[in-house]
């Protein structure tokens, strides 16, 4: 037992149970088991199974793209119809996530103060969470469609002569991403903001800092980790857009996102191997962005988090 000994003069009289407990291993850890079983059976196992599937391409795939067992990957990178979806997804998800986070900051700052009607306003902002993507899509089609109220109002005022095309294209999906993503970002940023001690700002005020300096020098650095986290989570939401890309977008054109391609392979072509390949590549692309953002965060800010992050 080389683990004990050292300068302890007496022999280790404690039982094995005690020594394991010292390392944090005791019966309480059994509480972790159900959670681990769920994670292993429903996440790790299917995931590894999926990885296995990607290197078992169908004969047709092998014939068309070559590359032997890697035919699916070859197809992913060579087939412009599939590979372009990476760019199409990023073109939607990045700006949407960025907008949601950046727009949340001033709104959360303004709503930080107390005023009458704050509850109403806050509940209005979080209402879309109960709407869900599908209802949002349906509403957008009616509200912002060719004969919807928006176009009707704009025509009436005389701002436009022709109805604007606001849905069934890039713009429609973007609207949908903002409507569903913004409340989420707002809630997170608000909670991070409320975690910053207000006396810090007051202290800065007594030191002669104007509101922009206070924001720039105090709030922003403390909020930075929260911003990064919120960006990541909003990006994850926007990145996996599926229903809205199909319903209010242009599913075969400018909003042909990766999840649609994966589902096409899965549901329509029944090529589970290719579907898994696209799905995995989707995860890889997303994790790359997440890693980049988190890396940037640790590069920019090393102090303790001001918020609850």
């Amino acid at each position: 037992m080389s683990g004990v000994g050292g300068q302890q003069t007496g022999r280790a009289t404690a039982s094995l149970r005690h020594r394991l407990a010292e390392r944090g291993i005791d019966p309480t850890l059994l509480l972790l088991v159900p959670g681990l079983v769920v994670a292993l059976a429903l996440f790790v196992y299917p995931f590894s199974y999926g990885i296995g599937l990607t290197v078992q391409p169908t004969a047709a795939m092998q014939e068309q793209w070559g590359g032997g067992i890697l035919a699916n990957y070859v197809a992913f990178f060579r087939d412009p119809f599939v590979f372009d979806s990476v760019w199409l997804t990023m073109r939607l998800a990045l700006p949407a996530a960025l907008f949601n986070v950046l727009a949340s900051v001033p709104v959360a700052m303004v709503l930080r103060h107390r005023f009458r009607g704050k509850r109403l306003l806050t509940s209005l902002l979080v209402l879309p969470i109960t709407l869900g993507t599908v209802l949002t899509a349906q509403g957008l089609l009616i509200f912002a469609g060719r004969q919807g109220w928006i176009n009707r109002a704009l025509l009436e005022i005389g701002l436009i002569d022709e109805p604007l095309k606001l849905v069934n294209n890039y713009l429609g999906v973007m609207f949908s991403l903002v409507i569903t993503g913004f409340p989420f970002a707002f809630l997170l940023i608000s909670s991070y903001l409320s975690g910053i001690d207000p006396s810090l700002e007051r202290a800065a005020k007594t030191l002669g800092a104007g509101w922009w300096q206070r924001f720039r020098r105090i709030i922003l650095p403390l909020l930075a980790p929260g911003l990064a986290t919120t960006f990541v989570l909003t990006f994850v939401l926007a990145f996996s857009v599926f229903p809205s890309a199909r319903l209010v977008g242009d599913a075969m054109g400018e909003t042909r996102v990766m999840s649609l391609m994966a589902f096409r392979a899965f549901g329509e072509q029944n090529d589970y191997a290719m579907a898994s390949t696209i799905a995995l590549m989707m995860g890889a692309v997303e994790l790359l962005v997440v890693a980049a953002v988190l890396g940037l965060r640790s590069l920019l800010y090393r102090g303790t988090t001001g918020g609850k992050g």
Partner: protein
Amino acid sequence: MAVSTLERPLAARPSTWFVWAGMAAFAVFLLGILIAVVVDSFGRQWFDTWFPEGLTTDRYTEAWDRFALGEVVGVTVFVAVTVVVVSVLVGVPAAYVLARRDFPGKRAVMLLFLLPVLMPPITYGIPLATVMYSFGLGRTLTAVVLVNLVPSVPFVILTMTPFIEQINPAIESAARMCGARTRQVFTRVLAPLLVPGILAAAILVLVRTVGLFELTFLVSGPGSDTLVVAIYRGMTSAGGGEARQLISAMSVIYTATMLVMLVVALRFVNPTQLVAQVKETRDD
């Protein structure tokens, strides 16, 4: 209007006005979407006019029969409640361990629970659905519940861990020093303290499960579709989709279901709840 009621004079800043304008635009869009769907669902005919020509509730009965909504709503509620119960039962004990213990491999376990939350659902959803089908579980209720557990259990763990961390561990030690055994520490001391956190996590899981489309869609079929999936199928079914008003009616039913579940759930989470509990236990 709201600006004048602010406690502090913010009106002087153009930036503040900009924020309010942005929020107003958001509100217009949001309410426009909501009202448009509701109006549409009650409309008879609505093409090239501001409002439909006359109102009716026929769309609801029609949609209800056509899409077997009774069954769909039942499935939705069943799936949501089952997923909530299971993820709380599985997630809270795990969160307790992660909040209170340090053990070898803890970081790996944390990462394992974080990954499903960070990954796009489709990424693990497709391999998971493939596994489900190969086990013969495709299009069953079991499969729908199981896939929904994948993001829900980690979600409960990740929200409950900080909640448990902020409960002073000395309280548990105190209970032990008073002679409470492990089970009693959990039932008499920890459980009442965890109730607010559990309810909050449960509501969030409920909302997420009812609204979660991607995973459910991959494994569900007739008889196991939840409401969102049924609406999606209605909108995209072959031949350009069902009549718009039917979809609108379904969407309104969806939102109403969501609101009812939220209201019911929120009835259980109120700030006076702790006080009420003390009153109850006084009688025993």
